[in-house]
């Protein structure tokens, strides 16, 4: 029926309305960025907003991070499941963060949903999912690396009405304010979210005013069909076959692990099928990922290998099949702790990526540092005496591509339009001093194209005591190389104590640093692509001159001998010479 309607609308109007729908998603996104109170929303853009149709299909989504790809629809479907169309009315705002069924990921990611009625008909939803800095729970910042049950991780919102017919649910809001550590901030984020959703509602209705309901709904269908068609065209050009990948997740933060994970990816020419059977069961620590995260992680790779540039909608995801038995580390069940789910969701993406990189080299590079390398620094600000919470991801090294070196100092795949917090801002707002922020020139990542370097960021405690919670995955299992490229280096946190002790770790919870002690945050170098012996000699020499590659690594991995003092080329290793000769000969 929708198709028949769409046919009657002239093709130019459809294009215009399609673009207008996408513009609504953008406008909602910008609105929240400008008004949120949490740095994690406005600086890190750890949120997504958009429109979903009345059946729970994604119309458009503005994303700050890849990790939220498509999660809005799961939340809207949970609203429809619980209330049905008849249980909703204009002016309602629903709130959910249920990780197991409600489109949730971890409790900090709170989704608000507004049903959009036009002429008394439910036509769509505006929805927005954002990371609240505080949702209560046992630790400041709510997410932590040592929770053992979801109940320790904060308030659970089991898909309830925050506003009913335009009236705020005062009891619920009081309850929230009483249970979070920074009620002003939480409240500010919530209000910013509601404002952004109302904006989406208003714009959608204006579009209906102008073009009529039939044209708008017809254009929505056309938008999704267009996304599906573009995606399938791209899938058709990829080499058919089944490709497998395996990896290990370090640990769960409370002493268990490592955990094997695996995928079998099948490209049929029409669909991308990902089967995660054989993946480790859910674990006691909070690294568990649930179904929504599993789908988001897979969708990221689907977008990457098909049509990275076209706007996201439900149609793009129709050719994706994801299977995984329940109760695994990718499909955890209540009440498994999930606060650092994203570390495991990254593995969903990375596994599919690893399986396909050799066969889709024009879209996928070698493995990168992968982990968000999230940190929470908490303490009392030395100037004001108030509690501060620094919550941020780190930039790291990306893998080399088949025709390019890896990027140096870039957000991981789960993040996106996400910014590092400027050193000057960090020092002013939080009780820390940053001793250095530079690229980490390790001896890893060699290749014909080399992996990009990660970063070193040193936080020195300026107040009497600060605590550090950090979750640096890929601390034990390295970013992978392709086609003879060397693996990258690990992510790590290195603590320098006042008494000279040095402690190296991948995860920690509320680790105490006294005044003057330093936490060094180090992110990994990405994997290389191709044999380093095939890297042109002059590029190796240039890298040494720029300090991207050490003299020692140039000699050992690349077979290029550079004079330590003059940085002039001295000669080539026997291995390199032999290889060059072998190639010339045969």
């Amino acid at each position, binding site marked *: 029926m929708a198709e028949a309607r769409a046919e009657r609308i*002239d093709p*130019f109007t459809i*294009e215009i309305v399609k*673009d207008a729908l996408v*513009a609504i998603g953008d*406008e909602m996104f*910008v*609105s929240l960025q*400008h*008004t949120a*109170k949490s*740095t994690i929303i*406005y600086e890190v853009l750890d949120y997504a907003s958009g429109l979903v149709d009345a059946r729970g299909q994604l119309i458009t989504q503005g*994303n700050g*991070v890849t990790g939220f790809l498509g999660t809005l629809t799961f939340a809207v479907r949970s609203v429809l499941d619980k209330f049905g169309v008849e249980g909703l009315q204009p002016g309602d705002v629903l709130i959910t963060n249920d990780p197991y069924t409600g489109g949730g990921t971890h409790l900090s990611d709170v989704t608000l949903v507004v049903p959009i009625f036009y002429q008394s008909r439910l036509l769509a939803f505006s929805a927005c999912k954002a990371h609240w800095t505080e949702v209560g729970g046992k630790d400041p910042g709510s997410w932590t690396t040592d929770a053992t049950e979801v109940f320790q991780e904060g308030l659970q919102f089991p898909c309830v009405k925050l506003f009913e017919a335009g009236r705020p649910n005062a009891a619920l809001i009081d309850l929230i304010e009483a249970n979070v550590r920074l009620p002003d901030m939480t409240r*500010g984020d919530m*209000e*910013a979210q509601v*404002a952004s959703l109302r904006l989406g509602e208003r714009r959608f209705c204006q579009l209906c005013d102008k073009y009529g309901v039939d044209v708008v709904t017809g254009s929505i269908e056309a938008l999704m069909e*267009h996304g599906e*068609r*573009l995606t399938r*065209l791209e899938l058709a050009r990829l080499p058919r076959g089944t490709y497998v990948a395996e990896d290990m997740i370090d640990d769960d933060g409370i002493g268990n692990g490592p955990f094997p994970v695996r995928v079998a990816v099948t490209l049929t020419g029409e669909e991308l099928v990902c089967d995660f059977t054989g993946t480790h069961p859910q674990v006691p620590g909070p690294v568990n990922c649930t179904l929504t995260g599993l789908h988001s992680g897979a969708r990221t790779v689907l977008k*990457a290998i098909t049509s*990275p*540039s*076209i706007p996201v909608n439900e149609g793009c995801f129709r050719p994706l099949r994801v299977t995984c038995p329940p109760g695994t580390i990718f499909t955890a069940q209540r009440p498994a702790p999930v606060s650092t789910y994203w570390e495991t969701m990254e593995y969903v993406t990375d596994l599919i990526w690893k399986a396909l990189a050799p066969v889709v080299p*024009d*879209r*996928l*590079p070698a493995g990168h540092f992968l982990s968000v390398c999230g940190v929470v620094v908490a303490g009392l600000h030395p100037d004001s005496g108030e509690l501060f919470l620094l919550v941020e991801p780190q*930039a790291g090294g990306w893998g080399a591509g088949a025709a*390019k070196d890896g*990027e*140096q*100092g*870039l*957000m991981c795949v789960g*993040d*996106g*339009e*996400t*910014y*590092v917090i*400027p*050193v*000057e*801002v960090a*020092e*002013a707002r939080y009780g820390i*001093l940053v*001793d*250095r*922020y530079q*690229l980490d020139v390790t001896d890893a990542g060699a290749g014909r194209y080399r992996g990009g370097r990660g*970063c070193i960021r040193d936080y020195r405690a300026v107040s009497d005591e600060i605590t550090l919670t950090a979750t640096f995955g890929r601390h034990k299992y390295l970013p992978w190389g392709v086609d003879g490229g060397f693996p990258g280096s690990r992510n790590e946190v290195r603590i320098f104590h006042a008494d000279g002790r040095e402690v190296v770790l991948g995860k920690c919870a509320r680790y105490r640093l006294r005044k003057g002690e330093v936490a060094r945050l180090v992110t990994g170098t990405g994997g290389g692509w191709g044999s380093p012996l095939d890297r042109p000699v002059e590029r190796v020499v240039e890298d040494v*001159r*720029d*300090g*991207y590659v050490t003299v020692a690594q140039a000699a050992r991995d690349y077979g290029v001998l550079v004079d330590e003092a003059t940085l002039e080329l001295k000669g080539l290793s026997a291995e390199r010479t032999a290889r060059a000769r072998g190639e010339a000969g045969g």
Partner: protein
Amino acid sequence: MKRAPRVAVDIGGTFTDLVYLDEAGGTGTGKALTTPHRFADAVMQVLSEADLAGVEFLAHGTTVIINALTERRGARTALLTTRGFRDVLEIQKANRPDLYNLLYRKPEPFVPRRLRLEATERMNHKGEELVPLDEEDVRLAVEAARRQGAEAVAICFLHSYANPAHERQAAEIIRELWPEAVVTVSHQLTGEWREYDRTSTAVLDAYVKPIAGRYLAELTERLEAAGVSRRSAFAMQSNGGVTRFEVAAEAPIHLVESGPVGGVIGAAAIGELIGEPDLITLDIGGTTAKASLIERGRLRVAGDYFIERTPTTAGYPIKIPVVDIVEIGAGGGSIAWFDPAGALKVGPRSAGADPGPACYGRGGSEPTVTDANVVAGRIDPDYFLGGRLRLQADRARAALQPIVERLGVGLEEAALGLIRIANANMIHLLRLVSVRRGKDVREFSLVAYGGGGAMHATALARELRIRRVIVPPNPGHFSAWGMLMADLRHDLVQTRFVRLDAVSIEELRRLWAELEGRLGATFAEEGVGEVVFSRAADMRYAGQEHAVQVPLPDLDGSEPEFWAEVERRFHEHHERLYGFRLASPCEFVNFRLTGLARVRKPSLRPLPPGGGLEQARKGTRMVHFDEVGRHPTPILERDLLGPDAVVQGPAVVEEPAACTVVFPDQTLRVDRFGNLIVETEVP
């Protein structure tokens, strides 16, 4: 040749434009082909069309800076940073705007790592010295930079916005040891926090400084030889004001958007003349459409400017005040195309000037917006550029054929559909500068210029329910004309975050006195005494990052009234922009001071009464007005339409560089300054 006391020259991509006002208040224009390898040649050539003997004011818009940046033709530049932070320039903000492109490439730093040098020193955020500057490090850096053939040095130390002493000290050492080097010091360009932004600004300034210096010196010399004193030569800055060439050469990055701002100033000037203080400017050329917002006669100057930033690339931040102009890839040359899944798109790819639209007959075969306008009858093929370029309508029709076939529509329908999509892109642009900024687009009038502005603006106004479109005289030279209306302007920004309840009015007075002293010194260099200062602050709710710029009330009144007024303005601005207010305390982040020194301008002369409509009427042709249908439409020659002429649509008013399409439900009136005013009846 009449004497021309006021002259403007604007270098554009294809043409270098001249506009001058003669002593009687009349306007003259000229054009020369731009000479990309020696821009000064075209400038001097086009200037030869005016009598320069009595020039009192010459304004110059130049693309030299932006070209040096985009073509990477600047100087080999070194960077000196706080020890441990030389990679800030390369790590940048670390964002991946192209979310799903896993082969994304970050913007490459303008300074290679081997030229990024470090010195031991440290300030904290309060401006307290933690570690003194190690002067030996600076000397070593000079050696390293020289050895590697650098010509320019940028210095950016942490927290120099709070205390610039170390930056100054390092600059002195460098200048002493290496007097021929060009030096840029970050805090002199911007007093804002965020080290990457400040470093990037300093680096890009240093990078263009040698080229800009040589260019401005050469031009000064050639102008003096032609009789224009160096005291009369002014460069157009991105902030919408002009500055003497010598001052411009000290911080040439301020000229980065030198060209496009001219039109916005011109629009403000016209608005003042005719009593229209709230305007949106729309400049449509061959490749892009640009828009900007003018509120109560004031240009919107923003502090978050980037070069080379797109939705999929991060670009490079430049923290200087730049008139807020938003640009999209939509112009007369924009090409219509089908994506692989069959959706019709228009732009951003453009046929440009060469080969140009299919109807140019220069080898272009893809359908463009101009081709569609020819098919719809809105452009007369025989009177394009005043008849200098005869368009080939048959080629326009042939170019549209693939759309006709693929969508199964008629030829005219295809042309109108293409125009509608192009218009939708432009509407999106107009919404970006209005609705996205919390403004109601209907409260503004539209000033349309550039070759395509007048052609599309009337349709956009109908769609957006904008009452009035203004098409100024000489729309093809409007940017240069606007520069004639510019005043001297300089700005300062100083980061200082403090809660309102933690600062006294006395402290603010001291801060402003210090900033005014600094700006006053710059104006003294310009040789100007009388400066009008305006003060604003970036404010936010404590804990938020994104600030709202709020004009500050006078500091002379009583303290309680002052604070109450500041708070009131902040809440109001915040609510207008974002739709809500909070009860939380608010704080200052940046203080902004703007100094304006008015330049004496001649009053514009009203036109003598002109001929009637009949005299201007050239003929009639069928024009398609989309949903308002096809109409036999009178075609009028703009030059022959006198002031006070009133034309009821449908009509097309043609002039050599543009054409104005008046819809059947619109009325056109010529005002006494020769502006075309097109009114739409808005219920």
